[in-house]
C-alpha cells in the first residue's frame, strides 16, 4: 500500500478539532441515549444500569400517557405548522409585492422570531391571564364575552393558546424563507404568463409555486422538526396542563427524566420520538421530491 502523503496527513489534522467536538457533543450523547434505552436505570435500581432488552419500548406501547402526549404533539405540529405556513406565505407574498417600506416591513415582521421563546411564553401567558390579561380585557370591552375566559385552564382553549403563541413566533420564520425564495424568481416569467393571457392566479400557480417548492420544503422540514420537539413554549405557558391536554412528548420526556428520575425509560421515549420524527420527515421528503420533479 502506498504511504499516505504528507499533505493528506496535514489535511486530516485540520479535520481533527471539528471531529473531536462532534464526537464529544453529538455522537457520544446520541449513542449513550440509544444505549441507555435498553437499560433500566432509575430510583428502583439505585441509578445502576440493569439490562432491560426491549422492556422500556414495550412499556411505551402500553403507556397511555405516552400515547396521549404523542397525539398532543402530532395535533400541535399539524395545526401550528399549517397555520404558520399559510400566514408566512401570505406575508411573504404581500411583502414582496410592496414597492415602498420593504425593509421596515421586513424588520417588523421578524421581531417575534428574534425574541426568546420563554419570553414569548411568559408574554402570552400574561396576555391570556383570566383576571389581568389584555385579551380578556379587550374581549370584555367589545362585548364578545361576558365573563373572563380562563384560557389556559380549559383543554381546548389551552391548546389553541399554545398553538397561537407558536404561530405568532414562527410564522415570521416561514415568511423569511419564502420571501427569500420569491426574490429568486425572474420577472420575465411573469411577463411571459401575461403575454399568454394568464392572470394573477396563473402566475402564482405556474411560476411562483413551482419556484417556491424547494423553499417550502426547507421551511416545512424546519418547522415540523421544531414543532414536534416543542418544549420551552409549552413548559412555560401551561406546563403541559390542564390535565395533560397540552403535554407534548418532550414535556413528558423531561418529566420522566427530571421528576421521575427514570433515565432508562426517558431514553427509550427520546429514541421513539426521534424514530417517529425521522419517519415523518422522510415521508415528507419523498413526497416533496416526487412533486418537485414532476413540476419541472
Amino acid at each position, binding site marked *: 500500500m502506498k504511504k499516505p502523503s504528507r499533505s493528506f496527513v496535514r489535511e486530516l489534522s485540520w479535520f481533527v478539532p471539528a471531529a473531536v467536538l462532534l464526537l464529544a457533543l453529538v455522537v457520544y450523547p446520541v449513542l449513550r441515549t440509544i444505549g441507555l434505552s435498553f437499560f433500566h436505570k432509575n430510583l428502583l435500581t439505585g441509578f445502576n444500569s440493569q439490562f432491560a432488552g426491549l422492556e422500556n419500548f414495550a412499556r411505551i406501547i402500553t403507556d397511555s400517557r405516552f400515547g396521549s402526549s404523542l397525539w398532543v404533539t402530532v395535533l400541535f405540529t399539524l395545526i401550528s405548522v399549517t397555520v404558520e405556513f399559510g400566514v408566512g406565505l401570505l406575508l411573504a407574498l404581500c411583502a414582496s409585492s410592496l414597492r415602498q417600506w420593504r425593509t421596515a416591513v421586513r424588520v417588523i415582521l421578524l421581531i417575534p422570531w428574534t425574541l426568546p421563546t420563554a419570553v414569548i411564553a411568559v408574554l402570552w401567558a400574561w396576555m391570556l391571564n383570566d383576571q389581568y390579561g389584555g385579551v380578556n380585557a379587550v374581549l370584555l370591552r367589545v362585548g364578545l364575552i361576558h365573563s373572563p375566559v380562563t384560557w389556559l385552564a380549559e383543554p381546548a382553549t389551552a391548546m389553541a393558546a399554545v398553538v397561537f403563541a407558536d404561530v405568532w413566533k414562527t410564522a415570521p420564520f416561514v415568511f423569511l424563507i419564502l420571501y427569500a425564495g420569491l426574490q429568486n424568481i425572474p420577472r420575465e416569467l411573469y411577463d411571459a404568463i401575461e403575454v399568454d393571457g394568464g392572470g394573477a392566479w396563473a402566475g402564482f400557480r405556474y411560476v411562483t409555486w413551482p419556484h417556491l417548492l424547494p423553499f417550502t420544503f426547507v421551511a416545512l422540514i424546519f418547522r415540523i422538526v421544531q414543532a414536534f420537539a416543542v418544549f420551552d413554549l409549552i413548559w412555560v405557558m401551561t406546563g403541559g396542563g390542564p*390535565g395533560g391536554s397540552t403535554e407534548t412528548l418532550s414535556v413528558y420526556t423531561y418529566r420522566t427524566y427530571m421528576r421521575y428520575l427514570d433515565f432508562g425509560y426517558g431514553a427509550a421515549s427520546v429514541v421513539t420520538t426521534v424514530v417517529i420524527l425521522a419517519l415523518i420527515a422522510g415521508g415528507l421528503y419523498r413526497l416533496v421530491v416526487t412533486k418537485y420533479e414532476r413540476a419541472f
Partner: protein
Amino acid sequence: MLMEPDGTGLWQAIIEDFQTLHPDIRVQLVEGPAPTDTREDMYSVSFLSGAAAYDIVYCDVIWTPKFAAAGWLLDLTDRASARDTADFLPADLHAGTYRGRLYRIPAFTDAGVLYYRKDLVSSPPATFDELEQLSRTFQSSDRSGFLWQGKQYEGLVTVFLEVLWGYGGDWIDPETREVSLDQPEALRALDFLKRSLGTISPTAVTTYAEEDTRTLFQNERAIFLRNWPYVWTAMAQSPLRKEGRVGMAPVVHAPGQRSAATLGGWGFAISKFTRNPEAAWQVVQYLTSREQLVKIQSRMGRIPARRSMLPPEFTPILESARMRPAIPEYAQASDILQRWLSAALTGRVDPEEALKKAAHETRSLLGTGA
C-alpha cells in the same frame, strides 16, 4: 437554601436573627417559585449535577422517599436529639423516615379538615351519607353543599385518598408495593365523588384548587368545605369566623370505618453534597425550634409539627392523619392517579375502567405484576 416565596418577609427575618447569633455562618435565602413541584424539580436538577447549590432542603412530606432513595439527603438519625424526636408528631417524624433512617426534620404539619357552617348544621356529619343528607337539606340556588378540590393536581389525590380511606380502601401499600385501586372500596370512593358533581357539589369543582374553594366558602356560597388548616387562619377576619358560624371537623367516613385525613407538611433536610453539614444542621435546628415555629404559626397560620405546640382545636383531626404511600416513585404514581381520576370525574372514562387502568399502570410502574 431554597425556600418558598417569602411573601411576609418572615423567613428572611428569621435568617437574619440566626446570623446575629451565629456570625460565622452565612445563610443565603433563595426564594423559589410558588408551585411546589417546580421547586422539587429545581432540587432534582441541582442534585443530579452533584453540586451543592442548596445546602438545606425545604422538603415536602412526599419528597422524602424520592430524595432519600436517590441518596441525595444526609442521614440525620444520629443528630436529632431524643428530646426533639419525642416532641415531633409521630406521623410527621415517620414521614421523614426512609428505610428506618431519619432524613427530614418536621417543621409544620397539615391534614385534611372538613369545615362546616355551624349556623346551618348543628353537629358536623360523620359519614358520607350524613354529609349528602345535610347538603341536600341546606343547599340552595346560591349555596352549594360540599366543596372539594377536583382539579387535576396533587390536591385531587389528597381528597380522593380521604374518601378512599374513609371507605376502608387503600392505594399503594408502601411495604409490599401492592396496588388496591381496582378493589370495590376504590370504586365506591370514586362513585361518591362523581355522584356529588351536580348534586351536592358544583360541577366546576373539577377545576378548583384550594383557594378557589376557600373563596367560595368564605363568601358563604357553601355548607361544607374540605381543605387544609390554613383556611382557619385565612378566615380569621371574615364574618363567618368572627360570628362563630364556622366549625371544623374530621373528614367523613363510611359507617364502621374511621376518618382518615391526608397528612401533609413541610420540614427541613440537608443535602448530601453540602460542604458545611455542621453549619447546615445548626440552621435546621434553629428553624425547627419552638421559638421560630411559634412566630411562623402566628404569622402564616402553619401548624407546628410538635406535640407540645398543637392547637387544641386541631388535635382530633391531626391524630387521624395518614401518610400518602412513602415510595420513591410517588410523583409518578400520583400523576397516574390524577390523570385517571380526572378523566373519570369529567366523564371521559367510566369510573370502573379508570380505576382499572390506573391500577394497571401503577403496577407496571412499581414492578408488582403487569
